[in-house]
């Protein structure tokens, strides 16, 4: 039943991802009426599925890879809906909805069967995970918004005429820039809170040796990169191509951090 909800959510994400294309790229606003409700419905089914899964398996803790992917997909879908509610823009959905679709598909069709390796303090760890995933999602949104900025800038410079492919997107350049910056500003406190909670728990449960693990060091490196990126963007008004390069670099660090989970000796909470 749980997987059924998730598969339904995947189907709806797919529909939303397709419907958003004419709405954003071809200036066909009526397609919004499919894309946005489909995403809302998908997020609801996704939430139900995730809650049921976590409730049944791990005392409400997403520790297994596919559960984390699923939760990240849900946060990204919610980010898209938030941006739509605030700016009435669906352009971000061009990237966000396919990513949410893919992540949810992985979870829906290849469910993991791992369990918790040891009893842990569920409440705080849950916050730690959710805050960090929100920070990653914010970074992804910022990177995608920077890419969108680049696309919009190119389209405006190309001076294409009329409607359709290559005409300017429905979202103004400055709005896209605001989305990119504000998502970073939202992500930083999330990442800080996530790291703080994780550090306190680790210090109490494992001691100082925990902080010499490469995965943990890389995570702190990511936090510094996050701060540096916000500082550079605000100080120099970095936009366009260079903003994409910077966001891509930090996103690369995120991927390393994510991958480092596989090699970390201490940051493992599930067993097959």
């Amino acid at each position, binding site marked *: 039943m749980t997987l059924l909800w998730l598969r339904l959510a995947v189907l709806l994400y797919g529909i939303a991802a397709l419907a958003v294309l004419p709405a954003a790229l071809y200036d066909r606003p009526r397609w919004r009426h499919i894309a946005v409700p489909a995403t809302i419905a998908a997020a609801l089914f996704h939430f139900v599925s995730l809650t049921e899964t976590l409730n049944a398996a791990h005392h409400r803790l997403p520790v297994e890879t596919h559960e984390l992917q699923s939760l990240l997909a849900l946060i990204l879908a919610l980010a898209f809906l938030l941006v739509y509610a605030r700016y009435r823009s669906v352009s971000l959905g061009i990237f966000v909805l396919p990513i949410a679709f893919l992540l949810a598909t992985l979870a829906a069709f290849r469910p993991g069967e791992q369990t918790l390796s040891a009893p842990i303090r569920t409440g705080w760890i849950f916050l730690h995970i959710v805050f960090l995933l929100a920070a990653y999602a914010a970074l992804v949104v910022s990177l995608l918004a920077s890419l969108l900025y680049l696309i919009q800038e190119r389209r405006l410079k190309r001076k294409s*005429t009329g409607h359709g492919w290559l005409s300017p997107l429905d979202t*103004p350049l*400055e709005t896209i820039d605001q989305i990119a910056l504000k998502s970073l500003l939202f992500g930083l406190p999330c990442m800080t809170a996530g790291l703080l909670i994780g550090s306190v728990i680790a210090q109490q449960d494992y001691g100082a040796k925990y902080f010499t693990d490469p995965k943990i060091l890389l995570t702190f490196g990511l936090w510094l990169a996050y701060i540096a990126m916000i500082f550079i963007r605000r100080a120099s008004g970095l936009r*366009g191509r260079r903003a994409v390069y910077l966001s891509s670099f930090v996103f690369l660090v995120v991927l390393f951090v994510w991958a480092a989970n596989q090699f970390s000796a201490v940051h493992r909470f599930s067993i097959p």
Partner: protein
Amino acid sequence: MSQPTQHQPTQHQPTQHQPARRQTTSRLSIVSPASEAAASHASEGSLVLVGINHTTAPIEVRERLAIPLARLADATRTLAQQPGIREALVLSTCNRVEFITIQDRSQDRATGSATPNLLRFLHEYFAVSAATLEPHLYEFREREAVRHLFRVASSLDSMVVGEPQILGQVKESYSVARQVGAVSTALDPLLQRAFAVAKRVRTETQIGSSSVSIASVAVDLARKIFGSLHGKTVLIVGAGKMSDLAARHLIQQGATSILVTNRTHERAAQMAAQIANQIATQLASGPVASDTAAIACTTEVIPFDQIYAQAARADIVLTSTGSEQPIFLRSHGQSFLERRRNRPMFFIDIAVPRDVDPLMNQVEGCFVYDIDDLQQVAAAHLANRGRESAAAENIVTREVEIYLERLQSRDAVPAIVALQHSAEALRQSEIERTAAKLAAAAEPFTPAQLSAVEALTRSLTAKLLHPQLTALRKKSEE
């Protein structure tokens, strides 16, 4: 019922508007008597629409019939008081003057046409001879009048197809006509339907979604870059009419700081003063339509030799000088962007020769549109409106049918009711006559007999009327 006519074809003089007039003529399709009868406002009278527009009359004629808003109520009242006219509405815009009336059907029968009333009104009210007007007038009746009104309200008959003002103007005319009591049971629902059709056309097609004038295209592009223009600074370089128009559009959209510069300082000061006056007038005339309308817009004159020092303050640079050489080079763009910490700048170059080096468009954050670029965007939008207008015409055609069907159903109801009343009266009188005869013969109906006779006659009447009522309903549906 008469067919749609144009007045006295022999009077048509070849004018420069002749091709457009032929186009109008082709629109005046002959309505078959059957369909016309079906389309009539039977209970209210005949719907007659007479008017001139930009395709049938030159400005010299249109301006003689133009009615300012202040006189619209008087004109509508006067028209409604003409003999034979039951309801009236006058629509007067810069491109058209139209008189929409519901006329007594007896007028048609007496004269063969309902137009003489209107022609007399035009002649008396505007002091324009019939000979001057008639070659330019068009007349639509019933179905075609409904269709024409729907097309006008939906902006399909406008000079710039899809322009949004016309619907507001029709609504204004309707409001005035209601105030003076000139619209009632026939025109009221027709106008309400016209507004609904116009709304449907706007919602279901993209006929009005894009700008088609240079100034509004420039504003649209600025919005694609900056979103809201509220709080944005505009630098106007050179004092031309186009700059003035575009500046006005930008102010209406919320630009709050206008910098003006010109080689001749006095002209710059003059233009700044004009813009300040416009803002003052705008504020004095109360809240304007745009929700981002100028509230606290300031103007400032900048000496021309300080242009490079001050230009970085501007988000939008609107330039139209007569300079032989470009004023803004790529290097200037880079310098401005550095000083603005990469905040984008939009250059609207409507000068010929161009004031902005096209290479500046390659600078990240600088967007340069010259007059050709703007015209191409406007032309593409116009072509798109043309494509969308086909879909809009289909909506109008369907809506005309729906409206007329409803009208006919409504018209059939009184006939059905009258027939039923007549049959019932006949039945009652026959029963009373028979009851009186029997009473005179001292053999009156018993209550049981009377009840049986009542039931029998009711049943007979209903069965006899059934085919006729069905035929009436069917005919009205057809």
